[in-house]
């Protein structure tokens, strides 16, 4: 039995993967404690979980695209969040005495704290922003990000050359496979474990699903509410003329689709894993969670990436042949409909989705990640 401390961020895509791994570690007889904002993690983890609470910081500045969004993500959220979390991460390590620290790639405080205490630590890569170094195409932007990270480490008192908080030297667990990353080689301590889906409870009006029509889920994620409304309206207009053959489930902020077309179910959220088996395609902003879960269910994708790692994910899906990319901010209903019909009607997209999804499902997921985490312990003693 070993003790694992998980340091992660209060963001769905990050936290849910960590929960999947924690469940697996617990099932194998290990103990798990958490370090993160209690207001987010307590409801997610339940009353019995050990949570070392941190301060939190809302990520408000979301209505931006591209490099501006990347800059604000680092400057307004990841770096300040790292600073808020440092004292709590320290308390957690001292109070809990973990054998291993499991750190979300963007929860910088966890990496710095584990390093300071000389503990072995693992990186969880839940998105596509760093793993294949997509920013290398913009070297000065890449250098800016590295400089932000370096000055955070310096302010935290860690100045060791070669210390890289985004990538553990012990173990890097990435929720993807080469079906998406391409053939780029990774070091041996990188474990590409594919999808690690986490079933969450949620209501859905199952009786409203029409078995006679093809069904499309349209969701642009949990972080894009400011931008989502306009897209949802264009998406509703895109599917409205397909009423005879297509039914759409649109995850929309409340009030955005007050009077949707007859073939559109507008809902505030969906029980994703329960719904996916009933679907024929997914239109999404390209969050890693949604994309990998859709692929595991062999669903072709239409992706309208907004920012952060979403353009990278979209490019990976397009390269794999499993989907079509459209411009989020200006795709017209007609263009979106055309892309959707291609994804639905051309069997090559589904076959490629099946292939990529098969790779993601076969890579082992949370059990494989847990096994790799277990193998870190003997090396530590």
């Amino acid at each position, binding site marked *: 039995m070993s003790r694992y401390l998980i340091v992660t961020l209060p963001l769905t895509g990050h936290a849910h993967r960590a929960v999947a791994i924690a469940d697996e570690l617990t099932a194998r007889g290990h103990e798990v404690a958490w370090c993160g904002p209690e207001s987010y993690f307590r409801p997610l983890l339940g009353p019995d979980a050990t949570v070392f609470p941190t301060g939190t910081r809302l990520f408000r500045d979301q209505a*931006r*695209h*591209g*490099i*501006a969004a990347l*800059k604000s993500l680092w400057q307004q959220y990841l770096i300040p969040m790292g600073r808020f979390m440092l004292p709590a991460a320290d308390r957690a390590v001292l109070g809990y005495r973990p054998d291993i620290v499991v750190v979300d790639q963007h929860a910088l405080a966890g990496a710095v704290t584990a390093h300071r205490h000389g503990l072995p630590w693992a990186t969880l890569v839940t998105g596509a922003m760093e793993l294949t170094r997509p920013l290398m*195409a*913009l*070297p*000065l*932007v890449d250098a*800016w990000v590295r400089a932000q990270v370096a000055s955070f480490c310096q302010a935290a008192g860690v100045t060791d050359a070669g210390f890289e908080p985004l990538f553990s030297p012990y173990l890097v667990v990435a929720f993807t496979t080469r079906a998406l990353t391409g053939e780029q080689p990774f070091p041996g301590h990188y474990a590409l474990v594919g999808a690690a889906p986490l079933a969450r409870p949620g209501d859905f009006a199952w009786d409203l699903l029409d078995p006679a029509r093809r069904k499309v889920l349209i969701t642009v994620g949990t972080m894009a509410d400011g931008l989502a409304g306009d897209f949802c309206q264009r998406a509703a207009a895109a599917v409205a003329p397909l009423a005879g053959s297509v039914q759409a489930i649109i995850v929309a902020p409340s009030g955005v689709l007050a009077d949707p077309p007859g073939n559109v179910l507008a809902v505030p959220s969906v029980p994703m894993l329960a719904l996916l088996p009933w679907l024929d395609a997914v239109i999404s902003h390209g969050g890693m969670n949604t994309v990998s879960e859709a692929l595991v269910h062999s669903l072709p994708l239409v992706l309208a*990436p907004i920012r952060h790692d979403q*353009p990278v994910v979209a*490019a990976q899906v397009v390269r794999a042949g499993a989907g079509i*990319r459209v*411009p*989020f*901010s*200006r795709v017209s209903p007609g263009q979106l409909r055309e892309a959707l019909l291609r994804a639905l009607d051309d069997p090559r997209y589904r076959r490629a989705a099946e292939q990529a999804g098969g790779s993601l499902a076969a890579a082992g997921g949370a059990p494989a990640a847990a096994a790799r985490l277990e193998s870190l312990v003997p090396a530590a003693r």
Partner: protein
Amino acid sequence: MTAEQMTADDFAAALAAATGDESMLTAGITAATLLEGDLCLDSLDLAALGALLRDRYGAAVDLPGYVAGLEIDGIIGLTAGEVTDYVNRCQAGRPR
């Protein structure tokens, strides 16, 4: 061949052709229009625009190379006017 100076209107036409989005022609693009902040162009759009500019204005025009040389705030603040200036400099044989 004496190339004409590229204008903001020419930029809008090139962008419309590169993205297939005719609304760029009537979007009121001026020299001060921001590629990212105003037009929401992403890396794919820039690549398409770069290929089109090269075809239209000559092999010396390397927009991806130009953008890759910019600092983070330079990319965030990149305007249509900077792109047309760059293209015009390339045509005059002095890209930098």
